[in-house]
């Protein structure tokens, strides 16, 4: 299989949530609007964008927590909604794993690390020698294979717990990992080691990674490609070097300029930042009318009302 065949494609995906208050009328939230993205084997795609723009919703739809309102999710070309056989569905659930922001939430506090990993191994690799497999997986994620198995989650630091979550994805032989802000609760040194781990999973195991993050510097380090979301739409995507290094959409430019600069003091009177942000938001919220390619693979959205009018 040539490596530029996507392992997963999102094809015009939309998602609408209805919020029903006890009293009053229901309101709807257009969480995703016609999102199309491709994930390639052995590569990472960073998904960045405004808080509430739909990034986690993309991740949750991929792992099946939510189903699309319209559009398709294609796994190696096959529509996952059309997978009828149990075997196909199992294969998909195993291939695609999610790692969450909060390293505490995904582990059961009552069970040891051994229990968590052996369970995953037994379900998905029943033929292998469990103890040898456990040892090798812990080594892969750089956890001590002797002392770690008998520990409970609360006896590990945040970074170690996040490694266990990645180890679990390895145990089920995942091929795509959806990592939703996996390092934002971790401090700089631990963050670096988790990023290094993801880098290795990609280059040594050929895993694909959808890396949802607010941290553009880490996207630059890990991801070959970056997509930027705003209000449920993809407004810019392409090679990270282009999207981050030479942003072209108004929202991406704003995002890039707001990265904290220690030399710049924030004040209450902001000399125009809020006004500029408001302007960019208004113009970027309109429906995307076309995608324009400005260099090979680097596309930006044009909005129904021009963003730079």
């Amino acid at each position, binding site marked *: 299989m040539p490596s530029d065949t996507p392992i997963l494609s999102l094809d015009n995906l939309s998602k609408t949530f209805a919020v029903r208050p006890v009293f009053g009328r229901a309101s709807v939230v257009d969480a995703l609007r016609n999102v199309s993205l491709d994930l390639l084997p052995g590569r990472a795609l960073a998904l960045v964008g405004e808080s509430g723009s739909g990034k986690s919703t993309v991740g949750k739809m991929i792992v099946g927590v939510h189903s699309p309102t319209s559009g398709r999710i294609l796994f190696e070309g096959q529509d996952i909604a059309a997978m009828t056989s149990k075997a196909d569905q199992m294969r998909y659930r195993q291939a695609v794993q999610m790692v969450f922001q909060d390293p505490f939430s995904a582990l059961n506090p009552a069970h040891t690390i051994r229990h968590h990993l052996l369970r995953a191994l037994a379900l998905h690799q029943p033929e292998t020698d469990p103890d040898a497999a456990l040892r090798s997986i812990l080594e892969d994620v750089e956890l001590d294979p002797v002392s770690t198995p008998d520990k409970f989650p609360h006896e590990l630091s945040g970074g170690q717990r996040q490694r266990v979550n990645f180890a679990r994805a390895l145990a089920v032989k995942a091929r795509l990992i959806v990592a939703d802000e996996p390092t934002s609760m971790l401090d700089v040194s631990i963050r670096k080691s988790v990023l290094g781990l993801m880098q290795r999973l990609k280059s040594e195991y050929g895993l694909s990674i959808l890396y949802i993050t607010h941290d553009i510097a880490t996207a630059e380090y890990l991801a070959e490609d970056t997509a930027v979301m705003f209000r449920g739409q993809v407004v810019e995507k392409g090679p990270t070097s282009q999207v981050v290094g030479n942003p072209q959409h108004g929202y991406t430019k704003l*995002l890039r300029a707001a990265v904290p600069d*220690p030399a710049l003091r924030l004040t209450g009177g902001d000399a125009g930042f809020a006004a500029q942000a408001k302007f960019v938001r208004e113009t970027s919220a309109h429906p995307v009318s076309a995608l324009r390619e400005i260099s090979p693979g680097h596309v930006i959205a044009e909005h129904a009302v021009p963003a730079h009018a």
Partner: protein
Amino acid sequence: MSALLSVKDLRIDYLTSGEPFTAVRDISFEIQLNEILGLAGESGCGKSTVAYALMRLHKPPALVRNGHILFEGRDVLSFCDKELRAWRWSEVSMVFQSAMNSLSPVMTIFRQFYDMLRAQSTVTKAQAQERTAQMLEMVGIPADRMHAHPHQLSGGMRQRVALALALTLKPKLIIMDEPTTALDVVVQREILQEVLRLKDELGFSVLFITHDIALMAQISDRIGIMREGKIVEIGTASQIVTAPKHDYTRSIWDAMPLLAQRPEGMAHAV
């Protein structure tokens, strides 16, 4: 000038099955009126433990072994339950490191504002709705979302609700423990600027805990650097940034990830 908050020789142990673990080792610091004090340090150095103790929210196995916490000269550690209830949230509030610790999963957002407002003074439901709408809009969330439950909001929206709740009763001190980890940098900057604007208007102090030291340098008046339960260095933001005295402070700066290139073509707004 007398300090709003004064912490003296505070020591906090966690009583574990073996030897007690001393997470905070005799630290002392002050927060002045209208001051933003930043607190930085690597994971596990004791920042949240300090924050909980300042609010008197520490619970077993955490135990304050030694020291004093004075708020406007009053001894916080000796407050009775009634004094605590009157003081907490209305005079000092907190944004927790995990937004879900600030919010109840079973109540709508409006309900959580309503309960907080009602506990302080008599308000009608209509007045509470108006205030909730105002606070949500301040953090960039459409007012009609007040009828949602926390799980119907994104991670960053929940964090913004927690921040809005902490500001609602106009306290004198707000403890912010990693208040913007779930936000994109644009919203983060807008909200922090809004906090600064409110501070100019109302006057309050902030203890700002974060692992993002670039952000900390942008917002703090003074910065304390913590390591293994001790404050190893404390000084003005510009001194900590440009002339750190302690090796550990220097090593924090060296470890800071930087973007490959700073953006061109878009001037910084300030």
